């Protein structure tokens, strides 16, 4: 299958260092061929990565590891990985190893449920939990260059791996909440996420081609922002566009939506850092 090929490619690339980190996007499932969702109650017949709906030159920008501007933040994250901070005198590398290969797969299975707190945790949250609890350092602000750098660096370790989140058991109520959010109409324009991303993907809203609103490439470098941004920044942007009041980044509402979106895009390869318009 196509997919196995991608995985092997990525593994080899990892073995060679970061030489081939952009392998994932080209020739992967959901990118050139659609994914047939495994879940029976899945609303889509075919799942496509946002890569498909990007312009050809944007795709080329993402595919080339050098010209992908998100990689600059990846480098920032890599530097921060071994930077000792906080009262405990630790860096990420102190516990997780120097080469961050222990982070392989993390990007594909987050957000997860933290049963102790009874809350969902995404990568940005998890990094800050590590910083405050284990490193005794200050948490990073959502969408700060450090937070973006580290979350891109961590998620990029799973590049090419299929998104696979746990939505049953204790996570079910959060999943349902996210689903409800997705279909709930909001704002003065009275639109739900599904209005555009389920009903009209592939068609245009003014100059932009609507995607299926998949989350596999986040944090993504957006040409409009001229920098990378988190999934929650994109959520609040979408909310503002339908004239609704956005929730806070990292809020329970957005975390639940993040979980639901990851389920909608199950099987898509992690593309972080992707490039979108």
């Amino acid at each position: 299958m196509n997919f196995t090929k991608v995985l092997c490619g990525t593994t080899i690339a990892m073995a060679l260092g970061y030489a081939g980190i952009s392998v994932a996007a080209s020739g992967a499932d959901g990118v050139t061929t659609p994914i047939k969702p495994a879940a029976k109650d899945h609303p889509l017949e075919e799942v496509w990565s946002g890569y498909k709906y990007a312009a050809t030159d944007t795709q080329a920008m993402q595919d080339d590891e050098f010209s992908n501007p998100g990689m600059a933040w990846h480098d920032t994250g890599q530097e921060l990985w071994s930077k000792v901070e906080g009262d405990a005198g630790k860096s990420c590398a102190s516990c997780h190893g120097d080469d961050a290969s222990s982070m392989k797969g993390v990007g594909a299975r987050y957000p997860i449920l933290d049963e102790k707190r009874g809350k969902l945790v995404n990568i940005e949250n998890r990094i800050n939990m590590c910083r405050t609890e284990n490193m005794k350092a200050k948490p990073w602000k959502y969408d700060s260059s450090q937070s973006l750098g580290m979350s891109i660096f961590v998620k990029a370790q799973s590049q090419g791996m299929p998104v696979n989140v746990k939505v049953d058991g204790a996570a079910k109520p959060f999943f349902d909440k996210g689903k409800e959010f997705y279909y709930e109409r909001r704002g003065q324009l009275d639109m739900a996420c599904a209005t555009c991303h389920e009903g009209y993907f592939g068609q245009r809203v003014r100059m932009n081609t609507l995607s299926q609103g998949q989350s596999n490439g986040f944090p993504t470098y957006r040409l409009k922002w001229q920098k990378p941004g988190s999934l929650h920044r994109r959520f609040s942007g979408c909310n503002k566009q339908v004239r609704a009041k956005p929730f806070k980044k990292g809020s329970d509402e957005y975390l639940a939506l993040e979980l639901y979106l990851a389920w909608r895009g199950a099987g898509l390869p992690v593309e972080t850092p992707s490039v979108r318009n």
Partner: protein
Amino acid sequence: MAKPRVKVPKTAKAGDIVLIKTLITHKMDTGLLKDKKTGEIIPQHIINSFQATYNGATVFSATPHAAISANPYIAFNVKVDKTGDLEMVWKDNKGKTWSAKKTITVN
């Protein structure tokens, strides 16, 4: 701010024309936008000079203006005749400087 990203071939044959790619993270504020909250103009903050030297001789230089978008990507070709150091220097209008140095071995 992250270090500039540079892609330079490590080796080349004498007389080869090699492609150099560079990318630096910079906001490139045009000086025409207003701060949405205060209404004040955001002062211009751009990279206004880029220079590449090979063994001390300038091989490529550019003076970017306000219309260049954020995180400028600059690529250029250099003809290499003998082994040497390629040095690249970026300067912005607030006096900050970034540099990168790579060696190309000619065999």
